[in-house]
């Protein structure tokens, strides 16, 4: 009963807020809810890649994130599985303006490489997710329009400013009115056909932050999908800055990875 009342209250307020909120504000809140919770964050990620022939591959890694000035962020990805890529690590400096900086460490070759990529829409470790899906697409890269609002979602349509840099013609995002988490994103090709869908399949509240703990990306062009599950999610861990440096690529900060 109490729950129902709460829901009702939220619905009323939610609806009221929607009318006032501009699409820019919605996107900004969604971006924050998705990628900027707390000062920092940590999660153990299990990745299951299912290909068009239903063959499965699994990967497991821990991801550390820290927000820095001007909406910039740093990510540290540490691989645990499969065993032959264990201790492989990635470091990403994300900037709102300009290309990301990326580094990669290959322990068996004892090699650190800085990576410069032509774009962010390359596969993240062979999955159906792109790098951009993991670290967040820059909201300024697209023109957003609020196309629909229902009881639960804002439906925003986004069109790229630079069509040549992306393979989609537009995408639509269903942003949850309360949590501002994008629950579903559908990408359309040049003919206006749906071909790629992101779905947040499970949301839990962690330290007061609504958090996606299971998600999948389905891609009809490639075939198959990738399922992500997040375990041991925590925020405001107090990650020191120096973890996000080249030195720690080679020498994993074990105490922060547990």
């Amino acid at each position, binding site marked *: 009963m109490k729950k129902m009342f709460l829901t009702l209250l939220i619905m009323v307020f939610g609806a009221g807020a929607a009318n006032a909120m501009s699409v820019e504000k919605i996107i900004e809140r969604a971006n924050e809810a998705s990628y900027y919770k707390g000062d920092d964050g940590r999660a153990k990620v299990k990745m299951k890649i299912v*290909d*068009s*022939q239903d*063959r*499965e*591959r699994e990967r497991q890694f821990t991801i550390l994130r820290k927000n820095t000035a001007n909406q910039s962020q740093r990510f540290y990805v540490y*691989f645990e*599985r*499969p*065993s*032959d*890529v*264990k201790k*492989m690590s990635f470091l990403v400096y994300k900037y709102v303006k300009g290309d990301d900086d990326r580094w*990669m460490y*290959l*322990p*068996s*070759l004892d*090699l*650190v*490489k*800085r*990576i*410069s*990529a*032509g*774009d962010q*829409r*390359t*596969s*993240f*470790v*062979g999955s159906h997710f792109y*790098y951009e899906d993991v670290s967040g697409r820059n909201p300024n890269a697209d023109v957003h329009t609020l196309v629909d609002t229902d009881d639960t979602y804002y439906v925003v349509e986004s069109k790229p400013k630079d069509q*040549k840099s992306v393979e989609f013609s537009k995408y639509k995002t269903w942003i949850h009115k309360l949590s501002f988490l994008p629950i579903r994103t559908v990408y359309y090709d*040049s*003919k206006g056909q749906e071909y790629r869908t992101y779905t947040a399949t499970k949301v839990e509240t962690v330290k007061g932050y609504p958090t996606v703990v299971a998600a999948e990306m389905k891609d009809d*062009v*490639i075939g198959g999908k990738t399922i992500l599950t997040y375990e041991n999610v925590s925020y405001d861990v107090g990650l020191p800055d120096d973890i996000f440096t080249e030195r720690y690529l080679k020498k994993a900060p074990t105490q922060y990875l547990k």
Partner: protein
Amino acid sequence: MKFIMNMLHRLIDFSIAKPKQVIRWNVLVASILLVLVLIPTLFPSVPLNGVKIDTDPENMLAKTEQVRVFHNDMRKEFGLYDILVVGIVNHENPQGVFNQKTLSNVLALTDYAKTLDGVVSREIISPSTVDRMQNAGQGVVNFDWLMKDVPSNDQAAKAVYDAAARIPFLNGTLVSEDGQALALYIPIKSKDLSYDVSKALKQKVSDLGMTDSVYITGLPVAQDQFGTEMFVQMAVSAPIAMLLIFLLMFFFFRNLALVSSAMIVAGLSVIVTMGLLVVTGNTVHIMSSMIPIFIMPIAVLDAVHILSDFFERYPEFKDQKKTIKHVMMDLFNPMVFTSVTTVVGFASLALTPIPPVQVFGIFVALGVLFAFLSTITFVPAFVMVLSKKSLEGFGNTHSARENSGTSEGFLEWVGHRSYRRFKSVLLISFILMGVAVYGVSKIQINDNPVKWFSKTHDIRVSDKALNERFAGTYMAYMVLEKKLDRETVTALAVKHHIPSDLINGESKEAVLNQLYDWADEQEMSDMWNDRIDAYAAELQTFKHPENLKAMSDFQDYLLSTGLVGKSNSLADVVKTVHRDLYGKDDAYVIPEKNGAIGQVLLTYQNSHRPNDLWHFVTPDYSKANLWMQLKSGDNADMNKLVAAVDQYLDTHPSFGMDAKWYGMTYINTVWQDKMVNGMAASFIGSFLVVLLLMTLLFRSALWGALAMLPLTITIAGIYGLIGFIGKAYDMPIAVLSSLSLGLAVDYAIHFLARSREMRKNYPSWRETVQPLFGEPARAIFRNVIVVSIGFVPLLFAPLVPYQTVGIFIASILFLAGAVTLVVLPAMMTLLSHWLFKDHHGQLTQATKISIGVIVALIVMQNILM
């Protein structure tokens, strides 16, 4: 047997008595089949079998054939599609196609191709759809599209080539080794879409105003073209053949109405046979499309004999009924037996293991059977309904004789010579046979479906242009797999401290899944999971450096054979990424540690096309796929490669992996092999059956053997010639053997049957020869001319197999006719003492024994082959 003969006699009598009814029946049967074919073809919604075209060379093997099943399973497992190749060559620009204008057109063409229905856009190989990895200096490695956008100038265009040439997968495949040409690969979802896609691409090329030479080719395009040309053959060559036969017959018999009757029989036979083929749900295939052109000459064969005899006799009787009755009695036995032998010859093809050849054989046999029945009913009936007026002046009167005087004088001369000089004739034949046998031993077995198109055909021109510049357009694949036996699997588990009693399950996957499930329930699940991980990695064959090195060495060997233009494998991917990570050429090696390979490959998967990896290895790394590009699609070359690989595997036991071929270039050799062996078996089988039939027909082993003489010499001669001129023994040549058997024996039957009859009316063989070279020889001569020239229009068919069939059938018939008229009488002169002994229809002891031996051979052959 007697019963059937009586029935046939009655049928002839009935046709003469009730001609109109018989004509109606013949036409009715053909009309019904025509309607049954047309309705579902024009209205596909009707649930009947309409015309279905099949141009897929894969169908030379049965769907359940193990090699074919494996081929398709592997294509699916490694995500391989049928591919259209767009070759682009520029002769004007010094940088070839790597100039700004061409590359911007290529970009537009690729973007357009992506939007086409049926194109697998993610798999297109084009400069704008593939990745390159480049050392950008100072520890930076750069990942990007090979050609992200239109090059800003010619220098930038050249850079696209330079980057691609550094990538082994692309060099010699996407870009030509000489840096002048490009080949785009457009995968399609199914072969039947190739026409639409290639048409759309051609249109786009012209819309873009590309000045480069653009070749659109690839197996699906070739197949599609094939279907079109098949119809050209059926719709053009067959009617031309019919017209030619008509004109020749008219030249001989000078009576439009009578000649038409033979043509109507041929037409009805073709309609009925093709109708039955379609109605029974069979496809029109390269083989079955040749049915009309085979049926037609065979169908007129008997009619020519009837007309020829009628032509000779009519002036004598001056009465249709009397003449036709006489003619039908004269020819009844030879017609029955020539038809039976032809049916046997074609039906024997049903014993080959090639489904389209079986269908071809069965339906030609049915067609011949129908043609026979139609001839003995329709032709006499037609003669009966003709008004007496239309036959006025018909027949071999003096004026007509003068017209064809040259051939008559010539035939008499031939008969005379063969009789007088029989020893020389036989000696020369004997020597020529020896030479022919030597020629047969030199026969090269080879085929190549691309060479089914004539040299000037677009497909051949493209094929040549692309194979001159690229590493080869013919693909062959090989799956490598290391079989892990139970002991090894268990021993490895123990090595990784996993209790061996936990190793249960059918497959590797099942074993691992069970282990992981078990580990999750344990207290120290992390430790167990780590151990299982390490164990799982150990089971991944193609993450082990030694296996990748073995594969790489094997590829070096393949290249050294000179048969492979280029090969691609997981080893090349690993080496390329390894080199680019280090940014130096000497790092183009397989790294030493297992982990390094896994890490290099994970790096590779951070690209735009991570799934390209699975064209080379299965995600569990247990099977690897080796791609080979060959410059020649000749089966002979593929066979050499197979032998070279077998030799390598035999001499390198440390290679330690099972290797299995697939891919169309390989599949072609499999069905060729089946065809060669199957044809040999079916030929030997039908040779024996025909020999038996001949012995029974003539009630004498000697006469039976004599009947086989012309066809034996003919086949030896033709195949000897094939050996000498170096013409490859290919699909059409293989089919011809059974076919010539059925046809070449016909002349001998007519000649022998008539000579035996005539001998009764003359005191000696010597006196028989001259009349024998009158009407009977003339009938054979007319037949040789009509039927062999009837096949000539095939020479103008656009596809080489049809041309081959045309040339060789004409030659076979010509040679068979010549042997029958020259060698047979010489041999009969030699044997005349024994041949014409009267046994009062009783079988001699020797004949009985021969029959026993032949039957035993037939039984043995059927058991052995």
